[in-house]
């Protein structure tokens, strides 16, 4: 079957033979860059776009809720699906195509039915794309060099985010909001190119095939046991608490800027978004190295401690330019989270065959934390004022940092078995016909 896959992919990619000579590492760089580029413009523009199409606030709220629910509901099934599909490059390919379809649906058919469909398509494909990139990274770098690799991923993703925000903003203001969706769809094309050098990597059997003779119910039981691993549960709680304090902070800081700064507010808000991305781009590789040399706990503590500091500063400082500078701390947290989520998940689940499932589970709790954060943050700001809301978020962040310090185990040498060899080389031998009925399910909801 791998050969079959190869032939199919080769026929898709034939025009770009030159690209096939690019190293997989470079390919992964490019994929991170362009995927982040695409994802940036999408979310925030939807509300503005639908408003210009005469949608009421209630209708827009419903459409966004459909998207959120779809993304949340597909996190875990999508993770399991990615685990079950051998070719991660194919997963990335179809996720990107679904992205393009979603962007075109928004641009061409802004009526509720198709907007809901586009939201669902977008929600599901973002849940398959992230894990696919993480799995490709694990295959290319191997367990022992994953930290630096993820640091590099985060650097390129941050550059993509920054450039994407600038590009989409420019497009939205100078052309039309609708053009942003066409631009997003067009940006899928360059994002497909890095898949060419990656397709060979993805063809090697992945970790799950070491569990040669596992039956379907056994696989499911194993997955549940894995998700119940104390370290993974603690990590999930930590990042959920972190997101609870973190997610509402930028929007709230931005509304404060809108209230205070005359005329320059949109520019300052743009700076609040782009500056942390620059910090992430600069710091991520160092954080990846640090996580490999000094352990995950240290990096986690640095990133988590930045949140209460940011909340405390925002609650006492009101100068617009100072607010932008405080956002540097957001970059610190962002770099740590961006490197650590896929890294800790790989420490715990990297060789179990359920890596993407565990990433999906972490994505799920992050989503819950973020959703609650926006609601709680908005409520706190309305009832107690902005400074109190920032202080509250700082307190939640402090609790998250304390939880890391008190309960999070070091996962660097979790499985033992040190080996510098990339996974693909070690696992290439066995490719049994493991199959499980339960793994098939997640494919259904997309139809």
């Amino acid at each position: 079957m791998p050969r079959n896959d190869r032939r199919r992919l080769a026929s898709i990619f034939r025009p770009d033979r030159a690209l096939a000579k690019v190293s997989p590492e470079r390919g992964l760089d490019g994929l991170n860059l362009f995927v982040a580029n695409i994802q940036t413009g999408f979310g925030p523009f939807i509300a503005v776009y639908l408003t210009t199409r005469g949608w009421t606030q209630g209708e827009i709220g419903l459409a966004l809720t459909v998207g959120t629910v779809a993304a949340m509901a597909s996190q875990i099934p999508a993770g399991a699906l990615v685990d079950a599909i051998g070719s991660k490059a194919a997963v990335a390919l179809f996720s990107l195509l679904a992205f393009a379809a979603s962007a075109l649906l928004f641009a061409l058919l802004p009526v509720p039915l198709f907007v809901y469909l586009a939201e669902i398509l977008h929600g599901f494909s973002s849940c398959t794309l992230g894990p696919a990139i993480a799995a490709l990274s694990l295959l290319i770098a191997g367990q022992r060099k994953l930290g630096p690799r993820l640091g590099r991923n985060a650097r390129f993703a941050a550059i993509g985010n920054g450039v994407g925000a600038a590009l989409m903003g420019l497009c939205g203001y100078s052309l039309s909001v609708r053009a942003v969706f066409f631009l997003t769809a067009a940006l899928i094309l360059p994002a497909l190119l890095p898949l060419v050098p990656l397709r060979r990597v993805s063809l090697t059997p992945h970790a799950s095939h070491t569990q040669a003779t596992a039956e379907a119910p056994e696989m499911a039981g194993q997955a549940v046991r894995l998700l119940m691993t104390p370290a993974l549960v603690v990590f999930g709680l930590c990042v959920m608490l972190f997101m609870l304090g973190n997610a509402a902070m930028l929007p709230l800081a931005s509304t404060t800027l809108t209230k205070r700064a005359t005329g320059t507010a949109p520019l300052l808000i743009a700076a609040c978004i782009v500056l942390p991305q620059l910090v992430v781009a600069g710091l991520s590789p160092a954080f990846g190295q640090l996580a490999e040399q000094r352990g995950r706990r240290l990096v986690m503590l640095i990133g988590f401690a930045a949140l209460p500091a940011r909340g405390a500063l925002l609650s006492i400082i009101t100068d617009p330019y100072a607010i932008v500078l405080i956002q540097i701390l957001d970059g610190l947290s962002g770099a740590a989270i961006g490197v650590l989520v896929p890294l800790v998940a790989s420490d715990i689940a990297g060789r179990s065959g359920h890596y993407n499932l565990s990433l999906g589970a972490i994505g799920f709790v992050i989503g819950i934390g973020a959703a609650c954060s926006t609601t709680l943050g908005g409520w706190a700001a309305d009832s107690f004022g902005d400074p109190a809301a920032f202080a509250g978020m700082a307190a939640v962040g402090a609790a998250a940092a304390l939880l890391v310090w008190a309960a999070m185990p070091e996962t660097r040498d979790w499985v033992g078995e040190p080996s510098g060899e990339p996974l693909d080389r070690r696992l290439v031998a066995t490719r049994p016909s493991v199959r499980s009925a339960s793994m098939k399910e997640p494919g259904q909801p997309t139809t």
Partner: protein
Amino acid sequence: VKRRASWRLIGVAIAAIALAAHAPAQGPPATQKAALTNSTDTPHPKNLVPLDTKDTMGVLGKKVIAPSGDDLGLIVDVVADAAGHPRAAVIDFGGFLGVGSRKIAVDWNLLHFAPTDRNRPVLLNLDRAEIQAAPEYKTDSDQVKMVGAPPLSPPAAPDAPK
């Protein structure tokens, strides 16, 4: 299983692309809302009254500018009283890419529409500085406030927007 899952994904992607490609055939779904107000009943009601598009316009989603030409945001809601007269417009003000914008209610009488030129933004006789610090418009609050006419200036004449 792998293969079938992949093919299912292909199917979904192709279906989605086909759907998207079909879009232009269905025509631009531009002003369905405006059309709805014209014909809520059966196909051909007797009581049809002309609604001149030269004299009227839909307002949801229209861009609002200050006399200085500053972009003030989009109209996202209209607040009406029991008699059906509009009292305020809710504007989604400020922000970047939809981040950090605030919903602010402004006195309906301060808005000036130009139905003859659909591309011209709605003019609001207030400056950016006069509305940016206003409280956010919230329907669930008891004390909702809108921004009225500036206290000292004479009621500004509806001069031609720039």
